[in-house]
């Protein structure tokens, strides 16, 4: 197996040369940090990823989880991973000092999380789930709740989850039926939650479930949802009637306990309100927005590991000769010499680099939103995050699956076999287009909410950012063509948005929204093209300044150019469809299927 899971040179390029992580230390909140702490965290994180998470990647998949007598046992070795993360402080690298964290910027912790996900998402998710539950309490908990839960979750003493989905309510959370009835200082919770990640395990003393439920007489739909804290064991140690009814047998992420949980089977499950009544979904979204971007991180990390494996394989596997070679007895060539294989590798490299750049940009935005004291700067970061979140979730996950499809293709028949890790990587990656809101839902979020939001304010903020990058790139002769290509897609997105906007204004909602997925694809090419242009600009400047690291920087520029020449034209073609008012899917009657 390749022990290179990610291109650290490129990651450092993004951190230091593109997003200037050191600049974040100007904010009081991050003032104790410096390049030194960033480097040590990065080095240690990558070491843990390679030496602790990665060796368990295939064995975990083969062993899977065990479910017996209502209890989940994780695969052999998972306890050791949990322990390493616990001792190392990896449950709370970004949390406040007050809660036992180290206040690392999100830009840095998103990167270390990316590295762990390159190595083993099933395993790292147990850790991430605890931190996610803690985040909700940090944001919406009372001082008492914070004192009771935060230190335990951030230290890895307890695990956590997020419980939204029910058998009859997945995409449509307004239809949940779990109930919460007030009773002396707490609520009695009753209901079934399905597909709950890290829902049960043997790694911690307790598991804290943030649960969406409805109060008696709550308004129908999403406006009647409240959020409750429901620990598996109450603070006094009594069992809280949270039963594991079963676990799923899945295509991928097989070491993850995706559980069905029965709350209040014996009518003895206590919950405590988190945040205001009937505002539960809003609170949950504080976590969900971050979780959606994190899904993008999981997806692109998987694509990175698969690309690195494929790259190594194509350099070693000998097969065939160059098309121009006429001598059948000449030595066979490494398959990386074949143009079609290089095309597949380039596609993957362009995907991973462009999308990681987007993800780290969103991480920096969330740092600015969190730490800046300048309101205008905060607001700008907020708007950009809003509009980029569905791209980071949906484009990164759809694109990652496609990227890994090509990684597997590079292996030929060996790719289809489980001896190499790439088949598992493909299986594991599929879920990212499904959970945290399916990609269909993300597309509707982009076109239906984020684009029209505040009269198009977020879109305008994004267009302004992109225009600045285009202007800077244009000043460099070798990047002129690339800058033009990003400008072309930007103009096309603007045109199509106007065109669809007119349909929306005319009241034909169905017609408007049925274009959402294609719109998201086209929009994503603009966003990723912009990220490539930004990287190419920095790389070209380094080359012009006579950098020694010519191969690296030339690679960045050429990869960007590949994306602009090969992917943007395809996205421009989508515009033709979007402007054609094509409506077969709307008019097609069910009887015709």
């Amino acid at each position, binding site marked *: 197996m390749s022990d290179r899971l990610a291109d650290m040179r490129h990651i450092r390029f993004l951190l230091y040369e593109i997003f200037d992580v050191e600049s974040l230390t100007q904010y009081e909140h991050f003032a104790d940090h410096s390049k030194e702490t960033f480097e*040590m965290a990065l080095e240690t994180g990558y070491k843990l990823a390679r030496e602790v998470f990665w060796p368990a990647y295939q064995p975990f998949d083969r062993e899977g989880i065990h479910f017996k007598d209502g209890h989940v046992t994780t695969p052999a070795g998972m306890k050791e991973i949990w322990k390493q993360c616990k001792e*190392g402080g990896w449950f709370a690298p970004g949390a406040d000092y007050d809660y036992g964290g180290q206040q690392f910027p999100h830009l840095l912790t998103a990167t270390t999380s990316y590295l762990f996900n390159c190595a083993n998402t099933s395993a790292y998710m147990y850790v991430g789930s605890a931190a996610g539950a803690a985040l909700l309490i940090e944001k919406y908990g009372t001082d008492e709740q914070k004192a009771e839960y935060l230190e335990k979750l951030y230290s890895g003493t307890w695990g956590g989850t997020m419980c939204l989905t029910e058998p009859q309510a997945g995409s449509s959370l307004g239809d949940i039926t779990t109930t919460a009835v007030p009773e002396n200082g707490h609520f009695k919770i009753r209901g079934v939650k399905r597909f709950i990640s890290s829902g049960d395990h043997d790694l911690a003393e307790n598991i804290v479930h943030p649960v969406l439920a409805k109060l008696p007489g709550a308004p129908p739909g999403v406006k009647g949802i409240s959020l409750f804290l429901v620990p598996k064991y109450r603070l006094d140690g009594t069992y809280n009637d949270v039963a594991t009814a079963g676990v799923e047998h899945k295509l991928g992420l097989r070491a993850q306990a995706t559980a069905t949980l029965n709350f209040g089977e014996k009518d003895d499950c206590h919950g405590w309100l988190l945040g205001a009544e009937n505002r539960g979904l809003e609170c949950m979204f504080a976590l969900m927005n971050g979780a959606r971007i994190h899904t993008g991180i999981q997806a692109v990390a998987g694509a990175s590991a698969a690309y690195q494996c494929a790259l190594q394989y194509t350099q070693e596997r000998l097969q065939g000769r160059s098309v121009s070679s006429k001598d059948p007895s000449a030595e066979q060539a490494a398959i990386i010499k074949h143009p079609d294989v290089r095309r597949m590798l380039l596609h993957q490299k362009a995907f991973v680099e462009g999308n990681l750049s987007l993800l780290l940009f969103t991480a920096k935005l969330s740092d600015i939103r969190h730490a800046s004291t300048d309101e205008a700067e905060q607001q700008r970061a907020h708007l950009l995050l809003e509009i980029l979140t569905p791209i980071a979730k949906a484009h990164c996950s759809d694109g990652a699956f496609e990227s890994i499809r090509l990684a597997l293709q590079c292996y030929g028949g060996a790719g289809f076999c489980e001896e190499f890790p790439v088949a598992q990587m493909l299986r594991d990656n599929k879920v990212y287009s499904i959970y945290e809101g399916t990609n269909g839902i993300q597309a509707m979020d982009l076109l239906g909410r984020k684009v029209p939001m505040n009269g198009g304010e977020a879109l305008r903020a994004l267009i302004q950012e992109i225009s600045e990058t285009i202007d800077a790139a244009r000043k460099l002769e070798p990047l002129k063509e690339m800058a033009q290509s990003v400008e072309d897609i930007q103009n096309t997105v603007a045109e199509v948005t106007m065109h669809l906007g007119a349909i929306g204004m005319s009241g034909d909602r169905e017609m408007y929204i049925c274009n959402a997925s294609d719109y998201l694809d086209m929009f994503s090419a603009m966003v990723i093209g912009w990220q490539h242009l930004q990287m190419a600009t920095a790389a070209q400047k380094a080359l012009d300044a006579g950098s020694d690291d010519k191969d690296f920087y030339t690679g960045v520029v050429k990869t960007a150019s590949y994306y602009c020449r090969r992917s943007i034209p395809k996205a421009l073609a989508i515009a033709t469809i979007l402007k054609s008012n094509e409506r077969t899917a709307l008019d097609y009657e069910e009887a015709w299927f």
Partner: protein
Amino acid sequence: MKIAVLIKRVPDTASVFAINPDQKSVATDKLKFVMSPYDEHAVEEAIKLKEANGADVVVVSLGPDSAKEVMRTALAMGADEGLLVTGAGTDSLTSKGVAEALAAAVKSIGAELVFAGKQAVDDDASQVAERVAELLEMAHASVVTKFELNGGTAVVNREIEGGSYTLELPLPAVITIEKGINTPRYPTLPNIMKAKKKPIAEKSLADLGLSAEALAPGVVLESLSLPRQNRRNHIIDGDTPARVNELIRLLKEEEKAL
């Protein structure tokens, strides 16, 4: 008790190596540098001892300013402070000169126990720690796989061909560490934050009462070359016993490796 751990910043052996056109130095611009792996075990052993008995662990290194990066890693593992010998004359020393400088550094901090990796993975000379012991007239054991402190005596196991033997050494002593002795811990995030605030002192050769001239190497480097690459793939067919036999035959007869 003061424990000194001698650590060295070396190229990661997984890096791609190239030799400069002068054939006398390694091209460093594309190398990634790490703490020499045996030294990590030495640091771990010192920290374990500190946790068990209480001690002050000082990591000592000789090298350029960038050597502080690996010293910080040792501090993040739990060492207390650092002492870097650096500056004019320190970049051209051979094992002999390095040992003299480090011996002076160890003496300046008054360490009773000195740990070091059994060798540095860049030049594999296995000389520095042994020379330090000689210069400071300390007891010495090398390639140690088990270490215990028994009052004022160190009890160690050394690996030897086909077995191991146990030695008792009076303190002060210099011990070089073999990999199997422990598993080096990963730095923790809280310790990474603390490491930033731990002191790393710097000393020049002059500060240690030495001069570059006196330490000048007594040997001349003729040239460096990379090992010849000779990669062949050989896939052996058959059932497992037959494959094992064939593998042994190949290793013995063709590769002369056994």
